[in-house]
């Protein structure tokens, strides 16, 4: 099969849309309260360090993805267990985004609409995108990224008249521990979720591109999240911010310029929909490639439809109510994701370094 290649620009667009999707809409890092902006800054720094580890792992094995590297480092049997764990993480993440889709639309856009109708359209688009492959997803992301960023910046600009900067004061009201909790929360969602790209980032011409793609997307995504979260808190205040399931939607709905420019919260829905589509597609692409590796198939495309339907079913089972989804995302996700986002990459990096050193010593002899 022909190997798919994407450019750095397409990789950045994919990763950026992946990062800004849910974190702009959902209330993340709420433990930090008014100091959430400090948590975002800390989370960006931590995430850059984490993605340096991710890209180092891929750069040490040029042209290989996470699944190939797992088998090289852990051997056939344990490698397959590691691949299964990683597939589980990506699969669960995709199901959470599907659930976000259902709850977002059935809560704010079309209240009372049946979940299976809502999920039908993103699922079909996701299957279509995955059948085309990462090249198609990359081109689509590049095409939509600029208009979406411009829209987000316009929305932030229009929120300025409604902002009250007193909502940030006093700074460090509860000391460092809540800020660190917020940082941990923001690190695990959305920044370190980019670990799922390890399964598909074997698609660059040069392996050096991976670190650049990670760095630029984390920095740009982080700045957008920082600006948007700060704007939300400045408009709503922290108490209202933590009360809503989708505070961004509420914050944007207060925009009214001369009673003419108003009701523009649809932009938030647009960012969420497009970003969500990319996030689901990236996660499902990782899942499909993982299953392909486990069973040694020559192509993953025939797996796309059944795995996506299975994912939709899983989303309905695990996130049947918005309360359950919100509490899982707010309290449990960071601890649940930590082994996948930090421990596993660290073990892999240590093993890679040991292997490379052993190879060097052998060749020196």
């Amino acid at each position, binding site marked *: 099969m022909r190997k798919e290649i994407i450019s750095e620009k397409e990789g950045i667009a994919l990763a950026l849309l992946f990062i800004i999707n849910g974190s702009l809409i959902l209330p993340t890092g709420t433990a930090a309260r008014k100091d959430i902006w400090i948590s975002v800054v800390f989370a960006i720094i931590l995430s850059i360090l984490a993605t340096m580890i991710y890209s180092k792992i891929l750069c040490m094995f040029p042209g290989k993805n996470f699944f190939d590297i797992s088998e090289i480092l852990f051997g056939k049997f344990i490698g397959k267990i590691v691949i299964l764990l990683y597939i589980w993480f990506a699969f*669960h993440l995709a199901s959470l985004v599907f659930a976000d889709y259902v709850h977002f639309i059935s809560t704010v856009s079309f209240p009372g609409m049946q979940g*299976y109708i809502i999920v039908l359209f993103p699922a079909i688009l996701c299957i279509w995108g995955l059948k085309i492959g990462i090249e198609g997803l990359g081109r689509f992301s590049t095409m939509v990224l600029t208009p979406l960023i411009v829209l987000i910046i316009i929305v932030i600009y229009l929120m300025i008249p409604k902002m009250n900067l007193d909502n940030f004061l006093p700074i460090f009201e509860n000391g460092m521990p809540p800020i660190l909790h917020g940082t941990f929360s923001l690190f695990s969602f959305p920044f370190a979720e980019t670990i799922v790209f390890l399964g598909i980032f074997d698609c660059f011409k040069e392996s050096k591109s991976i670190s650049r793609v990670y760095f630029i997307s984390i920095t740009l995504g982080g700045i957008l999240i920082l600006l948007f979260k700060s704007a939300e808190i400045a408009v709503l205040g922290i108490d209202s911010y933590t009360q809503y399931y989708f505070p961004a939607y509420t914050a944007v709905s207060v925009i009214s310029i001369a009673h003419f420019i108003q009701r523009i919260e649809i932009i938030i829905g647009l960012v969420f929909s497009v970003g969500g589509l990319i996030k689901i597609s990236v996660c499902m692409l990782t899942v499909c490639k993982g299953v392909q590796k486990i069973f040694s198939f020559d192509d993953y495309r025939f*797996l796309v439809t059944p795995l996506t*339907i299975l994912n939709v079913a899983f989303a309905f089972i*695990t996130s049947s109510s918005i309360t359950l989804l919100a509490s899982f995302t707010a309290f*449990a996700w960071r601890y649940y994701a930590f082994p996948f986002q930090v421990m596993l990459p660290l073990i892999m990096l240590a093993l890679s370094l040991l292997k490379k050193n052993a190879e060097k010593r052998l060749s020196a002899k």
Partner: protein
Amino acid sequence: MDRILFIILIFMLTVYVDGIDVFKSKDSKKIAVYSSIFFTAATLCLLILMDIKIPNPMEAVQTFIISTFGRN
């Protein structure tokens, strides 16, 4: 009932459009993997639509995490 018929129709259409190539390939491993994933997915979807309660593994995970680390 109409929801269930709707979903069954979608599954039949999916197999016709998507699965036919897999079955034509006569690769038994591909057919086995495709069929098992597809039938699991279809069964779960039908159970959900019939409002049959399926145990949620993530509730247990969440309870364990919250009882261990607290609601921070």
